[in-house]
């Protein structure tokens, strides 16, 4: 490159500046379209009395009374508690059982290994035409209708988690396992003390996925639970929105409360989560 051009390299040409400004304008417009509805809901959740659709927001109208109302009169805390039980229970079962299941699939030689692995992969592709119906009948037969376990169990172990963790185990250096075996460690000790710490990144990916899925689940709980007092928050909102739709402020506040935990988890674990989502395409 000739010397005269060097000073220009850091300065952008007017055309490039115009292009960048245009890009930002577009990005801001799309951001308003994507995040705008949430911001409007957030603002509305702090408004009291007046028509929620009134376009003129004023600071004097703002208060937290909708949040107080939805917690006190609609007992939102109870629904958040139910959601936590379902979410934490689902995550615990998935992480523990899937990581146990993936371990021999990655490290041991045994009869039927290939078949089991193929079946697990196949379940990710074959659609269960009436999955929910059969699961409902199974849960009914197990006398688990209207119980939290009935909500948690059917979706708890995901074959995706098993396959993801198997992949992670394969990356653990074999000599680490051999060394532990020479030291006389049993399989369970090896799994717990060596393998699990090595696959923590995958475990955290699964936790994030499961958290978002379980927290947002609403349909299966409606089917299994007859008692609305046991509803998780997404289901409760659907129910409240039907029965209390005239209490716009309460529904808005409840919706905000239901969104915030997922957004926090997503923002903190963004990098990990997005890598996993886009990694699924490549894999």
């Amino acid at each position, binding site marked *: 490159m000739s010397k005269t051009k060097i000073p220009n390299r850091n300065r952008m040409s007017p055309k490039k500046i115009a292009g960048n400004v245009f890009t930002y304008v577009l990005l801001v417009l799309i951001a308003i379209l994507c995040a705008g509805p949430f911001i409007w809901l957030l603002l509305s959740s702090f408004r009291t009395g007046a028509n929620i659709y009134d376009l003129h927001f004023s600071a004097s109208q703002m208060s937290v009374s909708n949040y107080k109302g939805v917690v006190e009169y609609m007992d939102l805390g109870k629904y958040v508690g139910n959601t936590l039980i379902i979410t934490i229970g689902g995550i615990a079962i998935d992480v523990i059982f899937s990581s146990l299941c993936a371990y021999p699939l990655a490290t041991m030689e045994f009869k039927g290994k290939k078949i089991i692995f193929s079946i697990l992969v196949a379940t990710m592709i074959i659609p269960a035409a009436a999955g929910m119906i059969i699961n409902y009948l199974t849960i009914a037969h197990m006398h688990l209708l209207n119980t939290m376990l009935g909500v948690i169990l059917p979706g708890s172990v995901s074959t995706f988690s098993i396959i993801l963790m198997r992949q992670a185990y394969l990356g653990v250096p074999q000599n680490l396992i051999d060394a532990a075996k020479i030291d006389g460690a049993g399989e369970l000790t090896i799994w717990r003390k060596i393998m699990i710490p090595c696959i923590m990144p995958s475990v955290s990916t699964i936790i994030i996925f499961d958290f978002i899925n379980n927290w947002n689940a609403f*349909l299966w709980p409606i*089917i299994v639970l007859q008692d609305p007092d046991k509803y998780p928050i997404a289901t409760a909102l659907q129910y409240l929105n039907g029965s209390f739709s005239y209490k716009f402020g309460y529904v808005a506040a409840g919706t905000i409360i239901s969104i915030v935990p997922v957004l926090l988890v997503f923002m903190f674990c963004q990098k990990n989560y997005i890598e996993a989502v886009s990694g699924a395409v490549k894999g």
Partner: protein
Amino acid sequence: MGEKTKGQVMRTRRETAKAYLFMAPALIIVIVFTIVPIIGSLILMFFDYSVLGETRFVGLDNFTRAFHDKEFLIALKNSILFVVIVPVIQILSIFLALLVNRKLPGMNVFRTLFYIPVVTSMVAVSIIWGFIFDTNGVINTAFQEWGWIKMPLPFLDGKFSAMPCLMFITVWQGLGYYMMMYLAGLQSIPEELSDAARIDGANSIQTIFRIKIPLLKPYVWLCTLNSVISAIGVFDVVFVLTQGGPNNATMVINYYSYTKAFGDFQFGYAAAIGMIQAVITTIISIVVFVYGKKGGMNNDE
């Protein structure tokens, strides 16, 4: 020699037993709640089964009934119609991915903002858009105040507008997801390729259409496949916002099957409808896949 083999056999046996002990808890759950439903629905669809009445084998009656069931045929038509969102969502998300792939400050903030709808529950999303599209909602209030309209627009209550509204919400929620997929694709394209094109005198639009989009093709087919499957299976947005109404304008197969099962307790019939949906999904997936293999994925995939 013989003893050694015997020892080996013993070892393999012990290893196998250990392996199955490790796998048992997860496998039991997968078998009961994933594999049994796959097999069970294949059986259930040939039966007249409800919780209360007696169960009897009806052969293909559930299928014959489906194709004479007006409501089902409307649902079928609407579900297939819903697939029109696929090209829209794919083109928009490729465009978005190209936009956020530019190396400018603040891109991470925009990527996060575009992704927010994806992680939010469909119930929350539907409640928000319900407020916005309501006859007394945000849009109608604004338009009336600005004097653009005299009568409120029906949106979700309109026979012709309800479906486009649901499609809009689905596209709105899905954009960020596909954007991230395409972004991953774009970032896997070696920088030297675009640089080389630029040196050869290609402008940025030419680089996009001649270099980047062709290299994205494997991603396009995969995302399209994904998007077709979820379009035919659309459920949540219908369940929360319209329940198939007004007058079946937004009735789709998945929701119809749900109402037959958990509203009318006609489990056999619902299973048969589910199977029809699965078959249609599989056929369209195969078409997309074969077409993609032939026309698109011949670069390296």
